[in-house]
C-alpha cells in the first residue's frame, strides 16, 4: 500500500506505521500463546523413519506433463448442475477458496461454453479480418506468431458471477458465489496491431468478434476499446491456452465481461454499428425494476471476496493468529485498497495487499488477524483507483432490483461460528 501514489484520486490512505506496529504486536502476542502448546508424546512423524525418507521416489519423466499431487485432487472446478439445462452450454467454477497468490492455474480456471469446448488445431486455425477495412485478410496461426507480441495479466470474470445471489444468500461457498473468475498472464498480439494490418476505414467504429464453435458467441465491441487494450492471446500463464479456454486463440478484453472474451476466435468484422447479436440483446443485458434493461454494461466494477475463511475453507483451529485472505479486482483499473470487516460492516480494517496491484488484474489481500474465538461476520470491500467503493447488496438492490442477473459486485458476508465453520449469509 505504501507504494501507491499519494495523488491517486479519492484513494484513502493505506495503514500507517502505527497501525503496522499495533498489528505486529498483536500477532506476536498470539504467537507466544501458540508456541506454548506442548506435546505429551513424541510425534512419530518425527521420531520414526518415514517411507518417503527411506525409499526412493519417482524418477524424472514419470509424468512428462505434471498434474497436481493427488492430495490436491479436491481442488477442481465444480459445476452446479441445476443452473443450466445441459453441461454443453454451461459454466463451472474456479476453486478460489483453495488457491492463493493471484494467478489462476489454467487447469482449474472456470469454463463457460455455449456449445461445448471444441478441438481446433493450430494447422486448422484461421482468423479473418474483414468488413470496413482496406485489406480483408486471412491469417494462419503461424502468421499471427510473426506479429509483435505483448504479455499482460488480466482477470476474466463472467458477467453472471455472483448472479445467483441477487435474491438472497443462495450458494454456500466462495467457489460457487465468486468462482466465475480467473486471472492469467496472457501473451499475444494487440488488436491495434492486427487491425493495422487490415487498415480500418474511417467509418469503422465497431468490431464484431465471433468464434469457430457452433455458438459463435458473436459480440460487438466499440473501436475505442478494441484499439485501447484488447488483444488476441495464444499463451496463458506461459503455455498454450487450454482447449476449454479457446485454444489456439482467444480474445482478451481487459476489465470487461467474460462473454466478450471470444474463444476459438474466427473472425473480426469491422462494422459501422453493433450487430445486436443474441449474446448482447437477449443475454448480457441487465433487466431493471421498471421492466427496461440496461445494455452494453461491459465493464466489471470493483469487487472482492474473502476466500479463507469461507464455507469450503473453515477455520480449523482454536482462537489465536490466523490469516484472512481474499481476492480483489476492478475492471476500471487498479485496486487501490481493500478493507476487511469481521463484524458485518460495523468496523473496517485496511488489509495488506499481497501483490502490487495490476491494471484490470486480480490483487491478493491479507489481514493478519488474531481470532478471539467468537463468531464473526467476515466481509471485504474493494476500492479501486477511481475511488469506486464496492457496494453493499442493499445499495445495488435499491437501484437494480432483483432480476438483473449480471454484474452483482456486492459485498459478500461469511458467518463464521465459534467452531470456525463458515457459511454464506446476508445480514441486516
Amino acid at each position: 500500500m505504501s507504494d501507491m501514489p499519494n495523488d491517486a484520486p479519492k484513494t484513502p490512505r493505506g495503514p500507517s506505521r502505527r497501525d503496522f506496529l499495533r498489528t505486529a504486536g498483536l500477532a506476536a502476542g498470539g504467537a507466544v500463546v501458540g508456541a506454548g502448546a506442548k506435546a505429551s508424546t513424541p510425534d512419530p512423524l518425527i521420531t520414526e523413519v518415514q517411507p518417503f525418507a527411506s525409499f526412493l521416489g519417482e524418477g524424472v519423466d514419470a509424468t512428462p506433463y505434471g498434474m497436481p499431487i493427488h492430495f490436491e485432487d479436491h481442488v477442481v472446478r465444480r459445476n452446479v448442475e441445476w443452473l443450466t439445462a445441459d453441461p454443453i452450454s454451461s459454466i463451472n467454477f474456479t476453486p478460489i477458496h483453495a488457491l492463493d497468490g493471484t494467478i489462476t492455474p489454467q487447469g482449474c480456471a472456470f469454463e463457460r461454453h455455449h456449445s461445448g469446448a471444441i478441438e481446433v488445431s493450430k494447422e486448422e486455425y484461421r482468423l479473418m479480418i474483414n468488413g470496413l477495412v482496406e485489406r480483408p485478410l486471412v491469417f494462419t496461426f503461424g502468421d499471427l506468431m510473426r506479429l509483435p507480441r505483448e504479455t499482460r495479466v488480466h482477470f476474466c470474470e463472467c458477467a453472471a458471477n455472483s448472479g445467483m445471489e441477487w435474491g438472497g444468500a443462495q450458494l454456500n461457498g466462495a467457489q460457487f458465489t465468486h468462482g466465475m473468475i480467473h486471472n492469467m498472464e496472457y501473451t499475444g498480439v494487440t488488436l491495434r496491431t492486427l487491425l493495422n494490418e487490415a487498415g480500418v476505414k474511417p467509418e469503422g467504429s465497431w468490431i464484431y468478434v465471433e468464434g469457430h464453435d457452433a455458438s459463435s458467441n458473436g459480440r460487438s465491441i466499440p473501436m475505442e476499446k478494441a484499439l485501447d487494450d484488447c488483444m488476441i492471446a495464444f499463451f496463458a500463464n506461459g503455455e498454450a491456452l487450454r482447449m476449454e479456454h479457446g485454444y489456439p486463440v482467444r480474445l482478451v478484453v481487459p476489465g470487461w465481461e467474460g462473454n466478450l472474451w471470444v474463444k476459438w476466435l474466427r473472425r473480426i468484422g469491422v462494422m459501422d454499428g453493433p450487430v445486436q447479436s443474441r449474446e448482447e440483446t437477449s443475454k448480457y443485458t441487465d433487466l431493471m425494476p421498471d421492466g427496461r434493461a440496461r445494455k452494453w454494461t461491459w465493464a466489471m466494477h470493483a469487487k472482492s471476496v474473502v476466500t479463507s475463511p469461507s464455507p469450503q475453507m473453515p477455520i480449523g483451529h482454536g482462537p489465536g493468529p490466523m490469516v484472512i485472505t481474499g481476492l480483489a479486482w476492478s475492471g476500471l483499473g487498479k485496486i487501490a485498497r481493500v478493507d476487511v470487516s469481521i463484524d458485518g460492516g460495523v468496523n473496517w480494517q485496511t488489509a495488506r495487499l499481497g501483490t502490487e496491484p495490476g491494471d484490470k488484474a486480480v490483487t491478493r489481500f491479507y489481514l493478519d488477524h488474531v481470532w478471539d474465538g467468537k463468531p464473526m461476520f467476515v466481509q471485504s470491500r474493494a476500492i479501486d483507483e477511481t475511488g469506486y467503493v464496492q457496494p453493499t447488496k442493499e445499495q445495488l438492490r435499491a437501484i437494480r432490483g432483483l432480476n438483473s442477473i449480471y454484474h452483482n459486485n456486492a459485498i459478500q458476508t461469511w458467518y463464521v461460528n465459534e467452531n470456525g465453520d463458515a457459511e454464506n449469509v446476508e445480514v441486516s
Partner: protein
Amino acid sequence: MSKCRNLLAGTALLTLIASPVLAESLGIGRLALPEEIAAWDVAVMPDGRGLPEGRGNVLDGEDYWIDYCAVCHGDFAEGAGAWPAIVGGRGTLTAERPLKTVESYWPYLSTVWDYINRSMPFGAAQTLETDEVYAITAYILYSAGLVDDDFELSHENFTEIRLPNEGGFYLDDRAEVEFPTLQQEPCMSDCRDAVSISARATDIDVTPEFPVIRFHYSDGSAPVIEATEASAAEAVEEAAAPETAAEDVQLASLDPALVAAGETAWRQCRTCHQLGDGARNGTGPQLNGIVGAAAGQVDGFRYSPAITEAAAAGLIWTEEALDAFLENPAGKIPRNRMSFRGVRSADERAALIAYLASHSD
C-alpha cells in the same frame, strides 16, 4: 458510446478513431477471397444488412420446428424441460419471475434470424437452408401472436417486422446513476448498528456437495478430516470393482481399434447423448446398452411420437438397424426428433456401433 468514453481513461483515443490507420502494415497474412468472406461473414444487422435472399412461411416453419426445434423448445415454442421458452412472457418483465423470450424481451428480429442461422439447431449448427431459417423465424413470429398463419417472411418484408420490446433497452448509465454514491470515501468505524443474520444459504440448500478443507495444528485443535466426497468416491470404486472385471471380458470380443475410432466419432453425438458411468438423459436419451435393446425404452426420456410408434412396431436396435438409422436418421424414421444429418461413412458407423456396444449393460 458516450458511456464508453466516460469509462476509458485516455482522451487521446478519440484522435485515434479519427485516423485509425496508424502505421504501415507488416504485410503478414493474405487477402481474403470473396468466397471465404461469404462463407464466414454471415452476421445480420437490425436494418437487414447481411440477410440473404429467401423466404419461408408459417406452415412450413411449423414442420421444420417440429423436426429441428421442438425437442428442446416445445411444440409451441413454449420451452421444454430446462430449455428456454421462445415465446410468451409479455408483460412479465416487471414480475417477480420475468419470462424473457423473443416475444417479451428480444429487441430485434435480425437477432433471431442470425442466431438460428448461425447456431441452431443445438448440436447441428449451420445445417439449415436459408429458406428454412426464414420459415422457422416466421413460425416463431406466429407463435408469438405477431403474424397470422398465412404469413410469409422474406428478405423483402423482413425489416417491416418489429418486436414488441424494441424500445425496452437503454445504454449503460451506471457511471451517471451509481458512481456518485459509490465513489465516496467509505466509513471505517461504527458504520452501522450491530448486525444479525437475515438469510442463510444453508436454508435454501441448493449447493452441491463439496469437500471441506481442514489441516492439522500443533495445538491439537483439529484432526485431519478426510474429504467426505473423496471417501464416498473410494467406496463406490471398491463396490464397482467386480463389475469392471466383467466389462473387461465383454470388451475383449470387440475390436479395440474399432472401439477407439468409434470414441472419436462419438464426439458428434455427445452433444445430445451420454454414455458410460453416470450417463443421464439430455437432449437425447442416454445410450448405455442400446445395441440389441428394444427402441424407445430408456427410462425417463420423452420420445417423439415417431420413435414411440417404431418401438410399438417392434423396432430392435440391432447393429443393422442402428447402421441404417445412423446413415439417414430422418429417412429411416421420418419425423423423429434427432436433429442430426447422419453419418455417411459406413466405416465410421461401424466404429460408432462398436463404441456403443462397448457400453453394454
